[in-house]
């Protein structure tokens, strides 16, 4: 019985495969057509203006924010993130580092973002700021400092978190993102355990999503991955989100950033 089942399944799979290919070609054409004129540019413009606007109780701008390349240096900063910051003693991704800058420079408490709602208030500000910063690493190579022991530790944690199955559907990140050439519905799933897929994913988030006209940071992306994975909700900028980001960015090491991206 096992044998007949295998043959039948194979025949059905081959029939489905040809159709899947022509659909994939059409979807590729669709994506090419919308690639020019990414509305993420609107968020980037807003982010640049917010970066330079005095805000918060301290009425300060973010122009002295140190994203790892020195105070105020935005160019190329995202290509080296997440990274270890001595002043906070933590490995930080872009969003958690922006939280630090907003808190120390502007006096805006991190809780305004961490406990906030998506697309509202300071979390919305965060979206625009991220759009601005990542645009200034577009075209640059992903270069994580993997010699740093703290970053290395986060990589190891991230890799294990990626494969951690739990919840009512037994899913882990790897369920959908552990193999080449898979799709959910029509959506291609990058294999994040290999370099090529990791570059496709890490290298194109944050991104504008046409389905809801929103700009999504990696924090937002990961949050919604976990939602669909049916876990509890990851806390904004929590250790697991940074660890997974280190795992993805390290796997994508050397790839070129196309940030900000344009997504379904």
């Amino acid at each position, binding site marked *: 019985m096992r044998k007949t089942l295998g043959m039948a399944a194979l025949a059905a799979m081959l029939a489905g495969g040809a159709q899947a290919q022509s659909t994939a070609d059409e979807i590729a054409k669709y994506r090419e057509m919308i690639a*020019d*004129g990414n*509305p993420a*540019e*609107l968020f980037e*413009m*807003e982010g640049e203006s917010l970066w330079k606007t005095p805000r918060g109780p301290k009425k300060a701008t973010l122009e002295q924010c140190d994203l790892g390349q020195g105070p105020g240096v935005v160019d190329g900063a995202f290509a080296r993130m997440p990274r270890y910051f001595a002043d906070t003693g933590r490995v930080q991704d872009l969003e958690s580092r922006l939280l630090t800058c907003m808190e120390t420079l502007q006096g805006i408490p991190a809780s305004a973002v961490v406990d906030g709602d998506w697309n509202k208030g300071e979390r919305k500000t965060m979206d625009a700021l991220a759009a601005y910063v990542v645009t200034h690493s577009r075209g640059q190579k992903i270069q994580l400092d993997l010699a740093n022991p703290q970053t290395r530790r986060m990589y190891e944690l991230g890799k294990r978190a990626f494969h951690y199955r739990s919840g009512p559907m037994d899913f882990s990140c790897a369920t959908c993102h552990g193999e080449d050439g898979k799709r959910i519905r029509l959506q291609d799933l990058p294999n994040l355990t290999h370099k090529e897929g990791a570059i496709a994913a890490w290298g194109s988030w944050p991104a504008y999503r046409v389905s809801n*006209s929103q700009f999504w940071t990696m924090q937002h992306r990961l949050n919604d991955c976990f939602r669909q994975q049916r876990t509890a909700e990851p806390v904004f900028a929590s250790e697991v989100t940074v660890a997974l980001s280190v795992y993805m960015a390290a796997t994508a090491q050397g790839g070129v950033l196309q940030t900000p991206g344009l997504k379904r």
Partner: protein
Amino acid sequence: MANPMRIRAAVKDGFTEVRVLMSHVMETGQRKDSSGALVPAHFITELTAKHNDKVVLSAQFGPSVSTNPYLSFKFEGGAKGDKIVVSWVDNKGDSRSDEAQIA
């Protein structure tokens, strides 16, 4: 107040190609919010693009145009440094006008 547009204009083969991204919700008036209430229609109705002082395109939009509208077109002539001005108004009377130089 509405957020600024992003306007890019470049000369190519005797034509100036203009690409515009507008920041606008383009609400259809048919969508319900989380509480089930209808979100009122809010969309750009009219747009003009000018090269120096000459209208090079005018358009009317309905609510079927996508959120954060994109538009591209091209006109004859135009030189590097010339001014392109794009203006829109929406059904609530909000408006926005931005300019860019031909690159």
